[in-house]
């Protein structure tokens, strides 16, 4: 390639970049908040993770999501140790990942402020097990153009082959309540 054609193709790429990125405007976050709660008559256990990563493309609806299991923090050290070592086996399965799509909102809807009820469907993988999941969520478009997404749902330990020994059944709920809050910025 001569110098001249190199410059020409570079100029072409520079011209194309803004239109391409505009057509595929995506949203991302690296500070998503995922909280879960196990509630029994004996004990309530809560954990928080403030570093969920997520990418959302309103044009295709595609949504991806990942959290580090070890990044969940509990009130008590022993709970966190048991969670990682006995239940989630986070050395072997370090991440929980969701891949799927958002249904019920269009890219045009997300260009103006407002709140939308949506459905999120896809595959959730953790502890080496993948399951199809469908959950309700809301997406709010802020006046600044950023998105706030919220979802509350339930995960059953047994669906992910997480074995809760009978000795601690009274302390740990079979159904875990999960809360997700994400502020998306334009990429």
């Amino acid at each position, binding site marked *: 390639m001569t110098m001249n054609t190199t410059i020409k193709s570079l100029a072409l790429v520079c011209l194309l970049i803004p239109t391409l990125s505009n057509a595929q405007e995506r949203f991302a976050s690296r500070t998503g908040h995922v909280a879960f709660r196990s509630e029994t008559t004996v004990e309530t256990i809560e954990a928080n993770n403030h*570093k969920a990563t997520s990418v959302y493309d309103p044009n295709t609806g595609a949504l991806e999501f*990942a959290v580090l299991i070890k990044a969940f923090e509990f009130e*008590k050290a022993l709970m966190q140790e048991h969670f990682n070592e006995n239940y989630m086996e986070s050395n072997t399965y370090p991440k929980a990942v969701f891949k799927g799509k958002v249904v019920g909102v269009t890219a045009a809807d997300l260009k103006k402020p407002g709140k939308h009820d949506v459905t999120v469907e896809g595959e959730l993988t953790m502890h080496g097990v993948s399951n199809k999941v469908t959950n309700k969520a809301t997406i709010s478009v802020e006046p600044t153009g950023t998105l706030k997404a919220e979802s509350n749902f339930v995960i059953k330990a047994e669906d992910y082959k997480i074995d809760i020994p009978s000795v601690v059944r009274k302390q740990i709920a079979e159904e875990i309540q999960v809360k997700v809050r994400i502020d998306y910025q334009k990429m």
Partner: protein
Amino acid sequence: MNKRILIILMTLAVVAGGIYGYREWNRGLEQANEVKAEVTLTAEELFKAYTSDEAGANQKFTDKVVQVSGTVREVNGGNGSPVNVLLETGDPLGAVVCEFAADMTIELKSGAKTTVKGFCTGYNLDVLLQRCAIVE
């Protein structure tokens, strides 16, 4: 006489066991300022270790108290969420993210040099250190 001593010793053992068990059960999460760093390196080296061989880096650094030095890219968070200090890695797509308690005041500006230690919890686009403390 011997029996009495035995009973006293056994009672003491049970009480000590109970206290130990109770304290162990209620033990809070360790903060990095309470412990010595196990590994020391630069933010760039730590990030490269995870991006070139994640499994190997997990073996070496995850679950350890890691001390990193580097240049501040950005400070964000707060307002009820943890405060994050992002360190430069030589790669614009990822940082070493040092998470501090929500009520911490961090007086670092982007471009500043710093050394931070924290509990390394792995790599998810960024390398994450939690419950951090500023060393210098």
